[in-house]
């Protein structure tokens, strides 16, 4: 049976430390990957999977009544994998096979190889459309599952994202929540230096979405926003714009948020990073 996992605030914080540890260790072991893009999502993933939001069953990952979480910014795979392992979809030690030949933990999520992955992503801009398909299916079948999609702010430059935003708003898809990991940076530069997105909330409201802006690293604010979104009281899709820090929790990455995209922490820096995260190894 699908059910949401609820944890005490102290436990949630401990989970964020474990997810950060797993992101750092798995990408450093792989020698590649996107730790900084994963670290910015940790509080959101923690509240989704362990803060009483997503209803899921690792024993029956395709239960038709499960809530769906789609990571549209597929390069955040190490973060998603860390959360799925913590949630019990597969053993935590498998995280160390990230990106290796034969491992289902591919560089970007592959839904047909790894339980808990709802969409194969990695070519940016596509997850929201897929989420809309699931949300429409829920409506047709009169099921009460909800769909959560996470996009990056750089990803939002893709035209398909706006096609999907227009469609979801016009169709009043109240069972759909879109989370922006607004970490401010894309591959080569700050989003503001390439295609500034603001005023993002105003744009979303103009497209008939409800929109909230939060601190994406405050467990309290993330929990408040996701609880608000998950309530069955809305007539419109909900957007949560989470202001985040690329590389959050590791000073080496935070110091240069535009310089670490797609780069793992070097092995010689790993111990210091794990110490800063404060996670048990």
């Amino acid at each position: 049976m699908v059910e949401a996992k609820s944890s005490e605030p102290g436990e949630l914080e401990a989970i964020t430390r474990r997810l950060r540890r797993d992101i750092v260790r798995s990408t450093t072991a792989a020698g590649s990957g996107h730790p900084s893009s994963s670290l910015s999502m940790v509080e959101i993933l923690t509240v989704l999977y362990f803060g009483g939001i997503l209803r899921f069953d690792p024993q029956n990952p395709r239960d038709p009544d499960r809530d769906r979480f789609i990571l549209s910014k597929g390069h955040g795979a190490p973060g998603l994998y860390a959360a799925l392992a913590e949630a019990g979809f597969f053993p935590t030690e498998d995280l160390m096979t990230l990106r290796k030949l034969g491992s289902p933990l591919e560089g970007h999520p592959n839904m047909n190889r790894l339980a808990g992955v709802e969409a194969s992503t990695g070519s940016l801009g596509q997850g929201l459309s897929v989420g809309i398909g699931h949300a429409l299916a829920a409506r047709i079948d009169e099921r009460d599952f909800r769909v959560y999609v996470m996009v990056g702010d750089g990803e939002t430059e893709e035209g398909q994202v706006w096609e999907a935003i227009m469609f979801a708003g016009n169709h009043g898809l109240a069972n759909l929540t879109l989370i922006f990991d607004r970490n401010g940076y894309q591959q080569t530069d700050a989003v503001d230096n390439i295609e500034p997105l603001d005023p993002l909330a105003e744009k979303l409201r103009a497209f008939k979405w409800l929109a909230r802006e939060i601190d994406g690293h405050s467990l309290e604010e993330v929990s408040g926003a996701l609880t608000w979104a998950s309530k069955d009281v809305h007539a419109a899709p909900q957007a949560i714009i989470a202001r985040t820090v690329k590389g959050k929790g590791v000073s080496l990455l935070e110091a240069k948020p535009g310089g670490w995209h797609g780069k793992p922490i070097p092995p010689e820096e790993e111990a210091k990073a794990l110490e800063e995260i404060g996670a048990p190894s």
Partner: protein
Amino acid sequence: MSLGITRIDFEEGPATREAFGETLAEIGSDERIVVVDGDVNNSTFTNHFKERYPDRFFNVGIAESNMVGVAAGLAGSGKIAIAASFSTFLMSNAFDQIRMSVAFPNQNVKLVGSHAGISIGEDGPSQMAIEDVALACALPGFTVIVPADGPSTAAATREMIERDGPTFLRCGRPKVPVIYDDVSNFHIGKANKLRDGDDVAIIANGIMVAMALDAAKALEDDGVEARVIDMHTVKPVDVAAIERAANETRGIVVAEEHLAYGGLGATVAMVVAERKPTRMCFVDIGDTYATSGKPEELLVQFGLTPEAIIDAARRVLKD
């Protein structure tokens, strides 16, 4: 070159797109079916489904990328998702969404492209899908079907709904002659031998099948026995039928309303090269975009006629 023997009579039978749309409505009571259309439902004829099952029909607007993603999500929640648009806007505009959200995760999405080929006529090259079969065939796991007439399109539509997996069904705009009076032997992946002959084999699909039959008739008057094979399924192609044609005739002509690269001709040639090398000639659009014009005029100008097939058959037999 005279138009006299061009078999395609644009008033004769239903367009393949019409047959698709009517069949879809007929089987639409199956609640697994959900249809998304890119605001061309009066052209793709998904209109008929929309009228009967409005709760399972979505006009997603002129936004093919989103349309394909939505179809993938519907399939992810267990639906049989049909995504329909003009074939070029579907396959070319939304190709990465088809690759990433449908083909790679092997979702049960049925892509239906109408207005394929140059026989759409006056609207011109921007609306003509002439790369679509190559694009669809390039996708791992895809089934690619190019039916020749109304009845076989209806049969293909029914069968693709029953088969799991991503599929591309290519339909045309103009009315086309009816070839099949009985479709009980029509099955996806199984070629249909419409005429027997041991001198030359003409392997065709789409509107070229009717022309191949006309060409075979004309060749018979010259004492040449041409076998005509409707290779409606380009992928997975019927290898055994190709191998038999290569073994039992002196050569093969492939005829398709598509560019030379990546379509039926290339697919058949690959099988022939591996199984039983034999002389081949190809009737297709070549390596060029077309222009505006009447469908009949364009088919002549770009070499898609029974005469072109006859010429190709003679070239095959000469060597």
